[in-house]
């Protein structure tokens, strides 16, 4: 077992860690962050390739030249939208589908919003879908082409183009004999809620909040899905949206497929509205791909789907959204050209022999044709986390040598590290003596309660208890809110704020009262810090498995502060630590995150920015909690059970009295 059984080698490693742990931590952190960011540089990442040979992308000539008059259809649809301003023209859509000869069905579903958002009333909605039955196979497999229906007054960009394209493609696809998979044309209402309801209905899942009703028509298992968000005119280029719920990404092959077919049709393609830089190996090129990567990771980190495609991932269905970006000036791409791209994608998907399983599911994209796989990004991420782990191990060594020193009355030790440790423990003892002089009458129990697991366990337990309160809090406060006549957003926000203030006061509340002096909080802070750091690394690695972006951002900001946190005598230093920790607390994290997101939009002056981001935060908080109930998002749970307790542990460490 080598390392585990050879005490000499082991002692060497332990000595190195306990002697140089600070240097090692700093080195690991800096190296890790630099390495991670350097991955955006083209020579350090890899070019995408097709792993699934069955896709045969672009092997056939795309022949979609619409017979329908697309312009007329656009006008007709817009007129329909004009007619019923607050509703979407489902009836018209269903009629069109039927006229094309699709098996058309309308799904009626109801959504009951949690948190008393609609005061117990359920909101009805309708999805329209038509199934084109494949000629060459029994309906065992299918592909979905979906689009969100948006009413005229919606804040979101119009999706008229999607509707028109869908109809034109349906007409075209129907004439072709080569389909081996059913194609489902799906138009959903109420954005993601409608999509979730349809997916629940299709897979016969009923949840407390979404009752999908019966789906009258079905096809086989869905292999892949493409969601279209295309406006009617002035199309400049296409943007691919990939991020799904809980940070799940579609198979890289599907993304490649879309990119490849766009290029084939000479349609410009981008991710996060960032096109590829022409000279990627230059400094500007690096900056550009870093920006793309950061944008991709930022939206990935939120764990919120960027489009309706994001909900498919949970059902093991690969899906992406294609969004049309408009611009008044310059050369425009026609809807027909976009249609040819989609035709190509569908013909490739039609070739699939089995589900997407090759290629990558864990990746970061710094450009449309470059990817950073899990094997590339995990080592630097591991280095960043190692900074915390090294410190934890060093503290653990310090604790174990401390106890063994106490047992055998300071035997002569040779290694420098132990001397250092001894001097530290001596210092501690001196400190302890000082405190003893303060309260002489009970020095023995005080001295005893300084060390050991029993002093730390209650603190850990309380930290997790606060997490549980935060998790169940929103539901609890909103049941009380109607009697106070406050909006739901405010109730949730102020309820959580109150809970958070309680968290801030936790160190004071758990402090023991000693007889002579005021409240003192005394515990084995080294042990708590060591455990806290280990728990933190565990949390970060667990998150990294599901959502590397979230884990990366958390690690980059949290680790340096948590590693340096320790209780100290110096007032100024102590306050500085407290401020640093406060800047990193979950509440401020959320605020900063919403501020950065707001900065992307429009705002006037810094005050307006703060106000807007405050509003956004309140709104976002409720939405995150809603996502938890309706879609099964984990974001809120992760923050309650992982991020908050870890932070609280370190918050109590700063408050430890020496």
């Amino acid at each position, binding site marked *: *077992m080598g390392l*585990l*059984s*050879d*005490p*000499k080698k*082991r*002692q060497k490693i332990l000595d190195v860690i306990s002697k140089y742990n600070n240097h090692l931590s700093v080195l690991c952190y800096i190296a890790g962050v630099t390495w991670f960011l350097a991955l955006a540089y083209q020579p350090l990442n890899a070019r995408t390739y097709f792993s699934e040979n069955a896709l045969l992308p672009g092997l056939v000539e795309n022949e979609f030249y619409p017979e329908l008059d697309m312009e007329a259809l656009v006008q007709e649809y817009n007129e329909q939208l004009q007619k019923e301003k607050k509703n979407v023209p489902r009836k018209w859509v269903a009629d069109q589908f039927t006229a094309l000869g699709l098996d058309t069905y309308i799904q009626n579903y109801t959504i009951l919003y949690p948190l008393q958002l609609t005061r117990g009333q359920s909101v009805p909605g309708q999805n329209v879908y038509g199934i084109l039955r494949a000629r060459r196979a029994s309906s065992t497999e299918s592909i979905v082409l979906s689009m969100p229906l948006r009413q005229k007054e919606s804040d979101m960009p119009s999706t008229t183009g999607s509707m028109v394209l869908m109809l034109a493609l349906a007409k075209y696809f129907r004439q072709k004999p080569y389909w081996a998979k059913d194609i489902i044309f799906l138009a959903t209402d109420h954005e993601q809620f409608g999509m979730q309801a349809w997916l629940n209905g299709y897979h016969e899942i009923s949840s407390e909040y979404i009752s999908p009703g019966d789906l009258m028509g079905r096809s086989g298992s869905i292999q892949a899905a493409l969601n279209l968000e295309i406006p009617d005119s002035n199309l400049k280029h296409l943007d691919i949206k990939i991020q799904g719920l809980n940070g*799940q*990404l579609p198979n890289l092959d599907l993304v490649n497929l879309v990119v490849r077919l766009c290029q084939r049709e000479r349609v410009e393609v981008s991710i996060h509205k960032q096109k590829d830089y022409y000279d990627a190996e230059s400094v500007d090129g690096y900056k550009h791909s870093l920006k793309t990567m950061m944008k991709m990771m930022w939206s990935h980190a939120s764990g919120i789907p960027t489009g309706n495609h994001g909900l498919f*991932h*949970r059902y*093991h269905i690969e899906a992406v959204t294609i969004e049309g970006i408009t611009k008044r000036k310059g050369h425009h791409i026609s809807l027909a050209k976009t249609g040819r791209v989609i035709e190509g994608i569908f013909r490739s998907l039609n070739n699939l022999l089995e*589900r997407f*399983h090759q290629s990558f*599911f*864990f990746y970061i994209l710094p450009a449309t044709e470059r990817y950073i796989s899990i094997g590339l990004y995990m080592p630097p991420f591991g280095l960043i986390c190692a900074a915390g782990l090294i410190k934890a*191990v060093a503290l*653990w060594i310090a604790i174990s040598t401390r106890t063994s020193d106490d047992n055998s009355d300071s*035997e*002569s030790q*040779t290694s420098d590290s132990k001397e250092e440790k001894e001097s530290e423990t001596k210092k501690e003892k001196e400190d302890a003596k000082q405190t003893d002089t303060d309260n002489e009458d009970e020095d023995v129990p005080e001295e005893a309660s300084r060390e050991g697991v029993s002093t730390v366990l209650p603190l850990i337990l309380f930290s997790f208890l606060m997490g549980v309160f935060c998790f169940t809090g929103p539901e609890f406060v909103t049941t009380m809110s109607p009697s106070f006549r406050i909006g739901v957003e405010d109730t949730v926000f102020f309820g959580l704020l109150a809970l958070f203030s309680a968290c801030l006061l936790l160190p004071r509340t758990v402090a023991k009262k000693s007889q002579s002096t005021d409240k003192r909080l005394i515990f084995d802070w080294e042990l708590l810090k060591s455990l806290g750091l*280990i728990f933190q690394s*565990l949390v970060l*690695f*667990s998150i990294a*498995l*599901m959502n590397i972006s979230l884990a990366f951002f958390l690690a980059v900001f949290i680790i340096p502060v948590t590693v340096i946190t320790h209780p100290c005598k110096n007032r100024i230093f102590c306050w500085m630590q407290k401020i640093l920790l406060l800047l990193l607390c979950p509440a401020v994290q959320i605020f900063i995150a919403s501020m950065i997101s707001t900065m992307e939009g429009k705002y006037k002056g810094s005050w307006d920015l703060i106000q807007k981001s405050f509003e956004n935060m309140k709104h976002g908080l409720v939405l995150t909690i809603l996502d938890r109930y309706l879609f099964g998002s984990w974001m809120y749970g992760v923050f309650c059970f992982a991020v908050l307790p870890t932070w609280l542990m370190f918050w109590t460490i700063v408050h430890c009295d020496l």
Partner: protein
Amino acid sequence: MSSYPLIFCTVSGIIIRLALFRTSLPDWISLQPEVSTPLTSWERAMEGIALKEYMISPYAGDLFHETPLVLRILGFMTSFSDNTILLMFVGLDALCLILMVKIANLYGGYLLKKQAKEVKRYATDCDTLIIKTEDLRIIQFYVIVAFSLNPYSIAACLAKSTAVFNNLSILFIFYFMLKENEYLCYLFIAMSAYLSIYPITVCVPAAIFFMQSSKFRKNKISDTEMSYTDSPALFSYCRTVGLCVVMVAALIGFSAFLEGSWSFISSTYGFILMVPDLTPNMGVFWYFFTEMFEHFRMFFICVFQINVVIYTVPLSVKLKEHPVFLMYILVSLICIFKSYPSYSDVGLMLSLLPLWRYAFEYMRNSFVVACMYICTTVFGPILYHLWIYAGSANANFYFATSLAFSTAQIFLITDLLYAYLRREFDLENGFKHLIREDGTKKQVILD
């Protein structure tokens, strides 16, 4: 130490179990492959009972693998309401806890007696290693904590894992052995073997134990003079093994009588030995055999199954003077290497670990092992989700964690073994051997 912490921990353990039954956690846990294996899953048990009610042999299909006696016990349990069943499972856990406390007490007494007998051959300067009566009370406390607040045991209880019967009978073996109640001990060895085959190896330590105690009773000889290979000893071994085998045979015969056919043999014991169900679990079998070419399968099944029991031989030779410890090590090895291991076994193994607390200070890898346990326990469900539900990770990810988990368990056991033997060595030789002529400390290396 007063008895309040003991009571507090016991009660909080029971309350946690009861409270968690009210949440949605049990539904989720009972789907986790680490907790409910094909052998212990509650749902499969229900299937078996339902089949039986329809007068179809539950062993005809490929779902039910409990033994006929357990089938009857479960049938009895399911005649009550759902809530009562939950209470019964908590009650079974409480019974386990009571047994563990009793075992801790008995083992303490056994240790003191053994120490008093052997104290003559101990070195003079090893006073710090001698066990005192106060130390034993704390063992009891740790056993209670390690079982009632053990996440593995709680998870197994929440999933209504039927492995609890197996655990109970193993605990009864320890209990009756330490009580020196020979026949009941054999009965429960036979019962454990009847339930899951592997524990038949436990009759080796039992044989050694009862041989020792009978010899002590007769001629009051000390440990060093005792021969383990003379003819009365051999006779005693044969008697134990023979009795165990007869009892197992009787139990199986009785089951066949109840069932009216022998068909259950292949779907219980055949299922355990041939490992036809390769659903993922925390063990090492499934991954290996999914990758296996069919014509090597038989050979490697033999290799893997022999691996479970082969350690009995060397360990029995080495640990013949410590039969209780030997029994614990064997039970733990079975927990690690058996074909369908689950958290229920891990819970049992970890709960009895504090019995060897006096050797803990010699353990060297506790930090690493603890970290490995925690990490693999957290990563397991995440990677399972990513593999099965999200479809983004694959079997290799999950197997990596289950392999790491097994490795952690093996580290724990080897480390405990090392610590135990190291302590024995120090007891006999004192601490003098550790110091060189020039006064510096020597290091002990295990090669």
